[in-house]
């Protein structure tokens, strides 16, 4: 390892290569704090050629490597197992090109999501994927996780906005995939790499689609006596043919947490749930849609529907949603943000089950979720130093995933599998399904040196498919 670290120092300079234990501490986990492992070293390349040299050096040394953006991921994807090397792309943060007429931008992977939208705002454009962490997360990380956000209901996830990629393959070769036109030549390799969780190579340049800022945005906040009626309103809005930009539900427990925090949005704490609806588009269309949504909400049982009168009020409505995670930080030292998707019509029954699971395990569980997509985020506040509570959190998590699968859903809508859910992949996919994914993996990374130990369940993966029998994927994380 010391030989490799010396080589890495030569490549990026001593200041951009971290190997002392206190320097590595922050890299032991990403947003999923219950899974941690200390990397062998962390390198911070400034440009593609350094990434190529780092990858080659790691391969020669037989040491795995892991790309990392801002480390805001929630599934353990950016954690290096087995003394692997973390390649942090935060110094590759230049917006290389903006072409307003072609509505595209070329960025390095370390560009922060929200910064891109700020940089192109004066062209009347924005970058649509908006994960909750958008003020900190990087576009490279978004590509790895195929990140979503509240507005994916109308605008789609990261994969819908990536046109082309420059990718350093796990053997050190650099290839350009896709085309700025969005039309691939041959196979849609960009589509395959987005959401690859950093296991198929290291993205060093991204061409993204920019979207015109909608000329009019209206935000509504509807108060419901319970979550079931809020879900009913969501179903009725969507079945009517409306496609809002966002349809978000915040449950009673979350409202209580938010209202007791600095994020207080003035919500009635006796409400069972609030639904935030955002409509955007042509002014002629939006005005009528607001009234239609109001009617759907009332028919479903809303006790009140407010329409934001100005930007300040709009921000206040969203605070109820976006401040949820911060508010929960007051309740306990740790927060486990779950992520699963169910068919929208199954939301009421699945939510009831999720709350029952939380109660049965005596956990502080609240729900904020992308109701329009059926994308649940049960959040559990806990203290990981309490071994008994941690065990209950993990058991409840598995039960929640099983309930979602039972309802015809899947175990991740936007956070990815990482280390967190790899052992549950077999609950969703058969061996034959996983076999196809393994073939894709093998075409890009036959020796499995790029972010090993992620996505695939450990046992079968090692027994049948690891050509070097290095056992990367057998080693449990701490």
């Amino acid at each position, binding site marked *: 390892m010391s030989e490799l670290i010396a080589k890495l120092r030569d490549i990026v300079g001593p200041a951009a290569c971290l190997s002392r234990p206190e320097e590595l501490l922050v890299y032991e986990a990403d947003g999923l704090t219950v899974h941690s492992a200390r990397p062998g070293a962390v390198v911070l390349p400034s440009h593609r050629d350094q990434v190529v040299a780092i990858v080659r050096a790691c391969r020669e040394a037989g040491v795995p490597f892991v790309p990392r953006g801002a480390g805001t991921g929630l599934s353990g994807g950016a954690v290096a197992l087995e003394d692997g090397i973390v390649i942090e792309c935060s110094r590759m943060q230049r917006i290389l090109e903006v072409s307003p007429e072609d509505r595209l931008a070329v960025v390095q992977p370390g560009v922060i999501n929200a910064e891109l939208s700020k940089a192109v705002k004066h062209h009347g454009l924005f970058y649509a994927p908006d994960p909750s962490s958008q003020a900190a997360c990087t576009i490279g990380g978004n590509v790895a996780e195929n990140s979503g956000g509240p507005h994916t209901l109308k605008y789609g996830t990261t994969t819908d906005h990536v046109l082309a990629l420059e990718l350093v393959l796990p053997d050190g070769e650099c290839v350009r995939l896709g*085309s700025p036109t969005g039309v691939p030549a041959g196979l849609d390799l960009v589509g*395959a790499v987005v959401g690859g969780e950093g296991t198929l190579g290291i993205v060093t340049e991204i061409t993204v689609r920019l979207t015109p800022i909608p000329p009019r945005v209206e935000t509504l906040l509807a108060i419901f006596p319970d979550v079931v009626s809020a879900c009913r309103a969501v179903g009725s809005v969507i079945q009517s043919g409306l496609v809002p930009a966002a349809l978000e539900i915040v449950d009673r427990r979350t409202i209580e947490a938010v209202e007791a925090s600095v994020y207080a949005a003035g919500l009635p704490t006796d409400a069972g749930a609030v639904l935030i609806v955002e409509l955007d588009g042509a002014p002629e*269309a939006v005005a009528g849609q607001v009234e239609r949504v109001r009617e759907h909400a009332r028919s479903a049982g809303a006790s009140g529907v407010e329409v934001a009168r100005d930007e300040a009020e709009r921000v206040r409505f969203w605070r109820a949603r976006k401040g949820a995670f911060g508010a929960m930080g007051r309740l306990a030292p740790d927060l486990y943000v779950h992520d699963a998707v169910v068919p929208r019509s199954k939301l009421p029954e699945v939510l009831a089950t999720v709350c029952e699971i939380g109660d049965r395990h005596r956990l502080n569980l609240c729900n904020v979720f992308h109701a329009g997509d*059926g994308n649940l985020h049960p959040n559990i506040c806990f203290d990981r130093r309490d071994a008994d509570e941690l065990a209950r959190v993990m058991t409840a998590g598995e039960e929640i995933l099983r309930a979602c699968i039972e309802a015809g859903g899947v175990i*991740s809508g936007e956070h990815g599998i990482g280390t967190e859910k790899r052992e549950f992949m077999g609950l969703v996919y058969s061996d034959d399904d996983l*076999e196809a994914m393994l073939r*894709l993996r093998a075409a*890009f990374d036959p020796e499995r040196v790029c972010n090993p130990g992620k996505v695939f369940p450990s046992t079968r993966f090692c027994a049948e498919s690891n050509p070097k029998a290095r056992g990367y994927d057998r080693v449990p994380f701490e």
Partner: protein
Amino acid sequence: MSEPSAPTSALRPGSAEQVSEILRESSGLRRTLWIRGGGTRLGIANPAPPPDAWLDLRDLRGVFELDAEEGVAHVAAGTSLNLVAAEAHAAGFELPLDPPGPTSTLGGCLAAAAVGPRFPRPRDAVLGLGVALATGEISHCGGRVVKNVTGYDVAKLHVGGFGSLGVIVSAWLRLRPLPERVLVLARKDETLERVLAVSRLSTARAAAFEDGALVLELAGDAAAVEADRERLPDLEEWGDGALEAVRSAQEAPARVRTRVASLPTRIVDASVPLRDAGARILCYPGSGLLLACFDREEGALEATRQSARIGGGPFRVEQAPDDLLENVDVFGDLSEQLPLHRALKDRFDPARILNPGRFVGGL
């Protein structure tokens, strides 16, 4: 290339399990297969020796489920696209795929990533796929929910993969609510520059430009469509026939037919070499596609290449006599990406039984 001559035999499985059996057996025997649905995109292929048999998927029919509450449908690959569209329509939805022809099947349309005037990316309609792998396994990717990052997005490899990595046997599709209002407008004597601007109106669902004539379809919220209509006082209202005429133009017979993808700002310049080489050009400005029909072979491929260089996107040869294709990959110049294509083919179809020789780089 021209449509291949009669095959030695045709296998017509009636279920995914039968497809699986055929593929398992074929891999063992190294029996080569050409896969077909409705046959509208069979011509897009590199010249290759004829197969041992056809794998004809048209008996793999059926809309297994259409969930009107969720707006999703699960459909067998050999089902006629027109049938799926009709069932979706009856339930209040539209199928966001452009059928290349009346015989088109779902699987064929997805495998060829076939596009028309309305929907530029067939992958957007796909939530999940059932795929029979060359080695016989039936694998599923994605699912029925509208948001999903559970494992790799393998479906992206099969949409536009021309059956080279596996045989699509079924798909979960995301349907769209029927638009409240649809309006087809047309005008002669347009310029491509103005057409580009018009195609960016918020309700423009389809825009096609050929020989100075624009056909524009507005669709969506009634008030928004009316507002866009008012912005275009000089366009005449037409019926659906105008869009059907565009579809016919797209499929019109030609000696050589090519497709170029271009950036919006370069599409005018990218059309010049094609026009200079005598092509009739159908342009879909919203998706940046130039579809060129040549009545003579001379200069057609050179012009196409030059057009693609200007446009900044890839080209594809959709129809040409075999002798014209000696030094050309019909899927364009993609040498840099070829090793990855080869590695994927090695893993997914090691016995080289699926459409061998016909795909990118003769894979």
